[in-house]
């Protein structure tokens, strides 16, 4: 499978693996993202500033004072040809989610109605979906997570909300997401996690990373409140969310 190199001025170019959304294509994107990070840390690819993975492409930014497109592109091409670096494993992440409170899940009943399920069946399908984090973007910590159980596919709401509360768990199309900030939003709100997807007090303010395998764990309101207090106090143990590494 060949790639295309697209110019993004004299400080970046995009390696395009395909023009569709597929796990295979995204796997190659993530492999190159990791391979470039590895090569850069080893000092083998000077001038690379950072890389930005998306569903189907990787943008490579560089410093034109330290390298050039003509020098860098063949090096990146060699890494593309080499493929997946050995020992790359994705994390298994489990996020707690409370579906039980009407305030947290204002769209649960409508989603149930439109997908001809009971609310509990909607929750079960969300819990059973093999989610994967593909991209973080648009706002800090906002993850595009695909893999939603197909029976839950719905278009976005025709009338977006002006204010979606922080940490709302939402679905639309074949994806789920968690809002890192209170913001406008057009997805269907079916639950809320007590976690913050962006916490600037933490050394790593964004917990999720592209490539994470993600599932949700159903919690009741009491557990939600307990975890929310820990998160608020900065006392939550985030490593407890990772099943294996």
């Amino acid at each position, binding site marked *: 499978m060949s790639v295309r190199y*697209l*110019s*993004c*001025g*004299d*400080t*970046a*170019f*995009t390696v*395009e693996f395909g*023009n*569709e*959304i597929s796990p295979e294509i995204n796997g190659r994107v993530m492999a190159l*993202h990791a391979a470039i990070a590895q090569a850069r840390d080893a000092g083998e690819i000077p001038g690379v*500033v*950072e*890389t*930005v*993975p*998306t*569903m*189907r*492409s*990787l*943008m490579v*930014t560089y410093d*034109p*004072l330290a390298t*050039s*497109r*003509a020098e860098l592109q063949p090096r990146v091409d060699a890494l593309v040809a080499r493929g997946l670096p050995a020992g790359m494993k994705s994390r298994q992440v489990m996020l707690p989610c409370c579906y039980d409170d009407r305030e947290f899940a204002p769209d649960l009943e409508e989603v149930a109605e439109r997908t001809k399920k009971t609310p509990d069946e909607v929750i079960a399908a969300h819990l059973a979906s093999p989610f994967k984090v593909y*991209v*973080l*973007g*648009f*706002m*800090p*910590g*906002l*993850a595009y997570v695909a893999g939603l159980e197909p029976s839950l596919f719905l278009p976005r709401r025709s009338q977006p909300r002006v204010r979606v509360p922080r940490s709302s768990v939402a679905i639309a199309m074949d994806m789920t997401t968690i809002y890192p*900030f209170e913001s406008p939003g057009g997805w269907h709100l079916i639950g809320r996690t007590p976690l913050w997807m*962006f916490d*600037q007090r933490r050394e790593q*303010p*964004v917990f999720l*990373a*592209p490539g994470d395998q993600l599932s949700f764990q159903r919690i009741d309101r009491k557990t939600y409140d307990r975890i929310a207090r820990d998160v608020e106090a900065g006392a939550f143990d985030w490593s407890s969310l990772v099943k294996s590494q």
Partner: protein
Amino acid sequence: MTAHLKVVRAGLFDTLQDLGRIGFMALGMPTAGAMDRIGLGLANALAGNPTNTAALEIGVMGPDLLVEADSVRVALVGPLSPSLIEGPDASPKPLESDRSHLLKRGQTLRVGMVEGSSTAYLAVAGGFALPAFMGSLSTYSRAGIGGFEGRKLGAGDALPLRREAAPGGDEHKLAQPFDYGTGPIRVVWGPQEEYFSAAGRQTFIGADYKVSKEADRMGIRFEGPVIEHAVAVDKGGADIISDGIGPGAIQVPGAGLPIVLLGDRQTVGGYPKIATVASVDLPRLGRLLPGQTVRFAAIPVDEAEKLRRDQEARLQRTIAGLVVARPPGGIDLVRLYEENLIDGVVYSG
């Protein structure tokens, strides 16, 4: 007692910026950073700071700042209408731009209007005593991070300084103003130029585009002739599967008008990008005002890289060639006495 610059009157949009929050776009974190890295670099050089020190980026109208420190050296860079310095017992005195100045406790610096440009910089020797977030002090106000409490400055804010007093030594100024260049804004085609018809691409590089009122740290929306997409917009011609957005990317949504994306831009997006501003001309973009008109001209990547390297060499020569600032008409006796009394510093020439 800690040293501060106190905001006694806020400007319109003043934020702290350095060269940006680099390395976190994969987490969805915009880089933010100075709209005009040349202005920032010159201000820091005049203040005796490393280039990447955070300085106050002044948009349109600057603040009034009260010195709550023994002394502070500030450097003002940009086309400001005369800024003023006034003390409790002295009448206002104009302060030149493009040079450093020594200010004393109790004096108030009234930063002027930014004229003919949208952006000016105020650096302080030693920098501001604020914590870096993800390696940078740049303010990204949409997420409330960086800089001073993650936001633009307001009246009453006290900006903490790293130094209680200015270091000794001369004031400096630019030997001549830095030449940002004129003529069309240089761009490199791509990443999605094939989403536009040949006629559409010709429109983009052949027509005048005017900076609209929707221009801020995120980007500049231009007004002008509509750029034709290759495929009809209602058949998806203005939609792509989101990909990364580099600095200076020019996206053209369905309405057909270009938007140049700058420091506070989102990291990924779903509109096709016809071209990308060459980095040599990004500082010019960062200085444009609503109503100003530009043209775009396409150049190859290697030429853009060479222009940037030449510009950087010129910037370094300008910094190496800073000259000691002499008051107009010879020696400033007042200042000479002040310096002698307080610091024991005498002019050497």
